[in-house]
């Protein structure tokens, strides 16, 4: 035994003492741990509970379904269709390049989109889903679904995207939607949270943009629980949003499609107004473009082609284009003089082919002159000198006033982009805008719708409808919102002398029904649908006196840009006006040859609701009309299809 018992006992005491010291220290430290636990779990619990909820709960917006747009009969103009897209999460994909390579063997990837996607994959947080391809077909989605194991991080997603089934017919009217851009956001003071959702689509132009407030709807929200990598684990609760309102426009889909097709090939615009309600039954601008291209994001090449086209497909010529109305303005001048008592119905003016006003010769289109002309004849044969005389008698203020009463030179509150105000010039206007005094020559020019007068096709159609009804018919585009009918543009009585109006209408009837009328070639021979109208040919260049001396060059000899605009305004049927139509063919030449035949076709189409029987046309036109009807029916097979869908 190496150790004495005493030694052993003492060593045991030492160990006991130190063991107790150590044990005490350990228990003390555990007390400290308990205090810390208490501090975190009891004293600060509320704060940490809040932080834990912040960690796990995300509030996500639920984008509302955009309101649809229908025509007056319920045909779909703008709808939402499911669209499939492919997204990828970098963190889940692992080897991004390899996965993309495999993906590209299954579906066609757009190189531009892919480049952008690759950049996003590199730069954004690794757990953000990045869109690799959009508008993927169902076939492609199924192919991806089958190959899911080989495509980690790749998810097919379904969303809604805007589609315009009859795109081209409505490009100018309805416009299109597109993803919110930074420029859009800058324009809004307090943007809706919705707009901050990547790729959220808003109206960019036309009705889509102007009634964004109705169409967009209200966002809902849902609270979701996410895990540390941002993956959604479950939905906690949701507050439903409100879908956008469905709009019904006054347009008749069939007519719109016909008008668009009829104008094809020209740079032209046509507007059809319902005389009773002011409803825009058709409103077309040609050439057009496919708005679906813009929804997808138009390619630079396609967009450049649209910009470079000399027929200018992008602007809506029907409401945005302003043209000198030419002779279609003559009803305004006549009514201004007659209403103010500066002329009576029987007054005649002698037309020698020109009128000399303050030393300057103003020519009539007919160099030889019309001889003695009264109101009826002046309109029927479109004598210019009669109106020069009327302008001299009544003055520009009266003409301007009458123009505005008849709907020219005023902007209509339509939900369309850049609705033009046009111009019904006054002396004040010239002083303010040109800085020079009004001269008598300006009035003479204005009398025949040249000079400063500018009107849009829409305004001309409104004028025709007001002449036809004597009411202040106002155009209406939105017929109902979510089924609630909107106020019509029936309008109050204009307060014009009914007697004078009747004479003007009679003269307009003669224009297309009298053998000597300027639009006799475009008459309708069915008595129930007789058309009243007025041709117009507006110059876009000055004819020099030198040219006059050598003889005015024929339109066909001029380059396209310098040819006259052809115009025609009309209403029908004459005894009971239902529709008013205005047609403008840019640089089309004469109103009687280029615009009136188009207007006649449109009028008949509007009144019949379909292709009219050939026997309403004069015999000699039937051959060509038949051919055109067949052509156009082939060009727009979709409308026939829509019709049967609805039935």
């Amino acid at each position, binding site marked *: *035994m190496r*150790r004495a018992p005493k030694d052993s006992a003492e060593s045991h005491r030492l160990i006991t003492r*130190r063991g107790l010291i*150590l044990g005490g220290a*350990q228990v003390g430290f555990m007390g400290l741990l308990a205090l810390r*636990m208490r501090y*975190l*779990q009891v004293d600060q619990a509320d704060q940490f509970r809040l*932080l834990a909820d912040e960690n796990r709960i995300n509030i996500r917006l639920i984008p509302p379904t955009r309101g649809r747009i229908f025509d007056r009969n319920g045909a779909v103009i703008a709808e939402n269709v499911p669209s499939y897209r492919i997204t990828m999460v970098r963190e889940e994909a692992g080897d991004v390049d390899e996965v993309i390579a495999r993906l590209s063997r299954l579906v066609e990837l757009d190189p531009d989109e892919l480049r952008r996607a690759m950049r996003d994959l590199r730069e954004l947080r690794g757990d953000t889903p990045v869109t690799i391809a959009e508008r993927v077909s169902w076939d492609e989605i199924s192919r991806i679904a089958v190959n899911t194991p080989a495509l980690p991080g790749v998810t097919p997603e379904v969303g809604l995207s805007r589609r315009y089934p009859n795109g081209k017919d409505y490009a100018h009217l309805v416009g299109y939607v597109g993803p919110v851009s930074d420029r859009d956001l800058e324009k809004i003071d307090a943007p809706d949270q919705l707009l901050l959702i990547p790729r959220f689509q808003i109206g960019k132009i036309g009705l889509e943009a102007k009634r964004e407030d109705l169409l967009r709807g209200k966002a809902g929200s849902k609270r979701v629980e996410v*895990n540390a990598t941002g993956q959604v684990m479950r939905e906690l609760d949701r507050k439903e949003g409100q879908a956008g309102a469905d709009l019904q426009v006054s347009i008749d889909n069939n007519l719109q499609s016909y008008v668009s097709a009829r104008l094809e090939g020209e740079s032209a615009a046509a507007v059809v107004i319902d005389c009773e309600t002011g409803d825009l039954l058709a409103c077309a601008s040609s050439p057009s473009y496919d708005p679906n291209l813009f929804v997808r994001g138009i390619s630079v090449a396609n967009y450049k082609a649209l910009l470079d086209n000399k027929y200018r497909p992008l602007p809506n010529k029907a409401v945005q284009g302003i043209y000198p109305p030419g002779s279609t303005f003559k009803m305004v001048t006549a009514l201004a003089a007659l209403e103010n008592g500066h002329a009576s119905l029987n007054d005649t003016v002698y037309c020698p082919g020109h009128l000399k006003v303050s030393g300057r010769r103003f020519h009539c289109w007919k160099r030889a002159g019309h001889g003695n002309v009264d109101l009826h004849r002046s309109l029927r044969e479109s004598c210019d000198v009669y109106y020069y005389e009327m302008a001299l008698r009544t003055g520009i203020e009266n003409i301007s006033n009458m123009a505005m009463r008849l709907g020219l030179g005023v902007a209509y509150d339509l939900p369309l982009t850049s609705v033009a105000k046009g111009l019904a010039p006054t002396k004040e206007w010239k002083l303010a805008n040109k800085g020079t005094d009004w001269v008598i020559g300006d009035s003479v020019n204005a009398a025949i719708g040249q000079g400063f007068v500018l009107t849009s096709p829409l305004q001309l159609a409104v004028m025709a409808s007001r002449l036809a009804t004597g009411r202040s018919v106002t155009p209406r585009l939105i017929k109902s919102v979510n089924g609630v009918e909107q106020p019509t543009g029936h309008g109050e009585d204009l307060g014009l002398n009914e007697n004078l109006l009747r004479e003007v209408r009679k003269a307009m009837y003669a224009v297309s029904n009298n053998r000597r009328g300027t639009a006799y070639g475009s008459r309708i021979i069915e008595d129930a649908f007789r058309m009243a109208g007025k041709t117009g040919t507006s110059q876009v260049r000055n004819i020099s006196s030198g040219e006059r001396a050598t003889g005015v060059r024929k339109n066909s000899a001029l380059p396209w840009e310098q040819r006259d605009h052809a115009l025609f305004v009309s209403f029908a049927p004459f005894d009971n006006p239902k529709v008013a139509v205005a047609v403008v063919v840019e640089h089309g030449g004469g109103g009687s040859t280029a615009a009136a035949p188009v207007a006649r076709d449109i009028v008949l189409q509007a009144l019949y609701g379909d292709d009219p029987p050939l026997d309403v046309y004069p015999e000699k036109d039937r051959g060509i009309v038949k051919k055109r009807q067949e052509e156009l029916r082939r060009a727009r097979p979709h409308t026939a299809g829509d019709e049967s869908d609805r039935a």
Partner: protein
Amino acid sequence: MSYLEYSVKTTPTGLRKVLHLNWPLAILLVSVASVGFLMLYSVAGGSFKPWAEPQMKRFILGFTVMMFVAMVPIWFWRNMSVLAYLISVLLLVAVELVGSEGKGAQRWIDLGFMRLQPSELMKITLVMLLAAYYDWLPTKRTSRPLWVFLPVLFILIPVALVLRQPDLGTSILLIIAGGLIMFLAGVHWAYFAAVVAAGVGLITTVFQSRGTPWQMLKDYQFKRIDTFLDPSSDPLNHGYHITQSKIALGSGGWTGKGFMQGTQSRLNFLPEKHTDFIFVTLAEEFGFIGAFSLLCLYALIIVFCISAAISNRDRFSSLLILGVAATFFLFFAVNMSMVMGMAPVVGVPLPLVSYGGSAMLVLMLGFGLVQSAHIHKPR
């Protein structure tokens, strides 16, 4: 002391040893391990796989090891101490040569059926060696410089090897555990004062070495220390662990969010939720009451060990029991301090609760020694 010095008459033999087992201690160990199973079941989202089931198997193995070790007389283990220590050192050297990399550090040897971490084993064998050393050393020499230097050497050899892996947490645990046994054995206060002073000096030096070619810690270790000192400085990377851990703990409140309802752990905001941070899951789901209860279980284990040590008149046994208890204490104290933001994240598991094989087996081995000392104590 030799075998003969024990009173054979009163020492139980055969199966009667089982009756003399320190049963309260054994039950406490099972209780703590059960808490572990429960939490591993919870963090797996209500599933025995992949953690709870293997952990149960290991605990059964560990318990068997404990019983086996307990049945063998304590003097046998005392005689084995030096050998065990040498084997551990050799294994540490082997790890240096053939070990597998895990998390940027060489820590284990793959034995096929399990991965052995020699550094874990060293925690027990060092305690055995030091207890045996002081049992052998006459008391009056305890504080003589030469006899103090020797155990310091025993401590520093494995510490140096573990640091090379590098495993800062285990190194510090080894130093503290070794130091505590020296303290228990009666080494003079002055030595400890000197060591603390030197420690402060060393820490300063380590920090000075940062960014120099002779940098003494890996970058990630430095970062962890930085983060510990100011978790908000790096909330998304290394500070993330601490911040999320505190959020989880704190949001548990008094009674917790309920079993398997801990959002922080279930949604993976909590890192390493089945290993180093399992205590946080417990605290989140069972609140202060749950966390405090576990702490009480631990405290009882310590108290039972100390009482067993004091009632044992065998010097080796006393030191061994206190040493094992101290090691056990260091495990959970460091782990809890770490997850509660009181210590840097050094990667120390919560004993018997965290998922992991080596630590559990080694601890059960340690408790086997405690039980053996208890059964075979001089009567």
